[in-house]
């Protein structure tokens, strides 16, 4: 029964993701750049949830793996080929090795000490990327493509313009279909579909891990490590494996960010990025399958759409009202939108943590229960 439910969830999820350019059209978010971000940060959050949601180990350092993934991918574009496949593979491998090192050190402690260690190590990587590692990271400017890069596998193309990233010839930034449906201009873009397929694959992997004996052990780590150790299980390798898996997901996300836009800067490794993924997972529902993706979409939507609502747009909304009321409404609402979008997000986050500890997924379940409860009551009345 569980198996059927998981399959159903995966199919629904895949349909929604593949149809996203259509589904998001009415929300104003259906442009390739933002849809790619939804999918990429969804992958990042899925991976983070395997560590944080299952084992309860809260890492603030996952931005480091995202950054490392981006740098590896850009180096692959510079040296080998503009094809994204080798770039993504290298991102995953390098982020995996890097997370093995950081995980090995920080998992010697648990709780708040673990969080602080990951935060410190990530912040260290960020500062190194800015200073000592400049030959690798190009410091403040960020790592970019140049015309005179080697790219040994690519045939010398037309010089004079930078080549673009591709998947065996399909260019990431190309919009391959541009229909108009219900008055909305839809853009179907190769880059988004690469991200979408990888998001669906990540979601499938996450379902399998959740239902596996490995996932069961990770949940056991969260609830009672003492009992687990006295049951003959060594918890350290399990937490380390979870840490590396989530690091590899972060590396994949970083590699994808670079594949969509081939440049990498140190700001991607800053702790605020690592903090953001924590918000995504908590907001969506930690330890749930779909929650992290909901959280990622929610936060990225706020960051990109809500932040663009300025006073002009607000005046447009309230244009039908008398002028004094229009002005009053704009004064009241404007601190919460536009540049103030963080305020709304913060308030929402607080509301969710206080009233819906299980996140958005918990909220959806409660609503579902109210509806089915109402249905059941209605059915009962019908029988009587």
């Amino acid at each position: 029964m569980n198996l059927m439910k998981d399959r159903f969830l995966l199919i629904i999820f895949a349909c929604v993701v593949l149809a996203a350019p259509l589904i998001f059209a009415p929300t104003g978010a259906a442009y390739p750049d933002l849809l790619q971000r939804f999918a990429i940060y969804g992958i990042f959050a899925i991976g983070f949830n395997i560590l944080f949601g299952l084992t309860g180990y809260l890492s603030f350092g996952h931005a480091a793996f995202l950054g490392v993934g981006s740098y590896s991918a850009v180096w692959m574009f510079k040296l080998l080929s503009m094809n994204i496949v080798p770039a993504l593979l290298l991102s995953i491998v390098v982020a995996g090795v890097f997370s093995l090192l950081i995980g090995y050190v920080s998992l010697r402690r648990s709780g708040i000490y673990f969080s602080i260690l990951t935060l410190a190590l990530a912040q260290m990587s960020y500062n190194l990327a800015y200073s000592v590692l400049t030959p690798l990271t190009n410091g403040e400017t960020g790592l970019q493509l140049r015309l005179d890069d080697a790219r040994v596998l690519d045939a010398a193309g037309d010089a004079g313009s930078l080549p673009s990233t591709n998947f065996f010839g399909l260019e990431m930034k190309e919009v391959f279909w541009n229909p108009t449906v219900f008055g909305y201009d839809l853009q179907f873009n190769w880059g988004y579909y690469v991200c979408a397929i990888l998001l669906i694959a990540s979601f499938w992997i996450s379902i399998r891990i959740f239902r596996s004996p490995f996932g069961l052990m990770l949940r056991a780590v969260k609830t009672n490590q003492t009992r687990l150790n006295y049951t003959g299980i060594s918890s350290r390798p399990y937490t380390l494996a979870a840490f590396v898996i989530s690091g590899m997901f972060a590396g994949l996300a970083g590699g994808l960010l670079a594949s969509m836009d081939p440049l990498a800067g140190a700001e991607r490794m800053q702790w605020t990025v690592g903090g953001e993924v924590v918000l995504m997972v908590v907001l969506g529902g930690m330890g749930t399958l779909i929650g992290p993706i909901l959280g990622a979409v929610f936060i990225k939507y706020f960051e990109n759409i809500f932040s663009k609502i300025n006073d002009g747009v607000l005046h447009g909304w309230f244009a039908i009202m008398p002028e004094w009321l229009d002005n009053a409404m704009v004064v009241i609402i404007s601190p919460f939108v536009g540049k103030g979008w963080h305020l709304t997000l913060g308030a929402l986050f607080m509301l969710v943590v206080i009233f819906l500890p299980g996140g958005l997924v918990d909220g959806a379940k409660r609503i579902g229960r109210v509806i089915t409860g109402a249905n059941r009551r209605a059915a009962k009345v019908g029988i009587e």
Partner: protein
Amino acid sequence: MGILEVQNVNKRFGGLQALNNVNLDVAEGSVHALIGPNGAGKSTFLNCLIGKLKPDTGSVKFNGQPVLGKKPHEINQLGVSRVFQTPEIFTDLSVFENVMIPCFAHRDGAFKVNAFARVMRDKEIRQQAEDILEDMGMKEKMNAHAGSLSRGDKRRLEMAMCLVQEPKLLLLDEPTAGMARADTNNTIDLLKHIGESRNITKVIIEHDMHVVFSLATTISVLAQGTIIAEGLPDEIKGHPKVREAYLGEAEV
């Protein structure tokens, strides 16, 4: 040659000599009770056996194998299980999942990345888990949340988790502490029931003399870090040193 041999174990905490040259020989198949007044060093001793504490000197051998310096999970994999004073279970998981974890540990060892197997499709593990729950009379509660069980059921679940690993030695740290008389009697019955169908050596640390004299085949008395007497229950009852150190405090 006993299944558990402890020789000359010493443990010092600062100025306190918690264990002073403790020797213990537990015969296979016996129920060996370790009693003693508060602060006698019973818990320290148990923690030394299980790998939580490392004694300063001395040796502990299980089945002829030295276990000192080994980690708790390694000692468990050798066949030693422990029941805690307050039941340690996975409160966020279901009863069924709680029992499956030791099944996996028993079959797959201390660490295995089987991230693509499915728990619910593992017939062997499910069967084992269902059998032990049936045996312990908890089958109808198998989908319950372990955290919502009554204290007695938590204890029962913890025992099930230990037994499903088919341990050679079961260590029980005050299994009836804080229980009402009826629950204590249930626990005694449970332990007797366990003993009937399986040949498991047990070491019990206990305060309640009623429990000790109903179950134990051998009793050792620990006082101020030293074993002051050892023998059959009847011998211990009449032992003058024991009366002085311990039994005099309570009605026997």
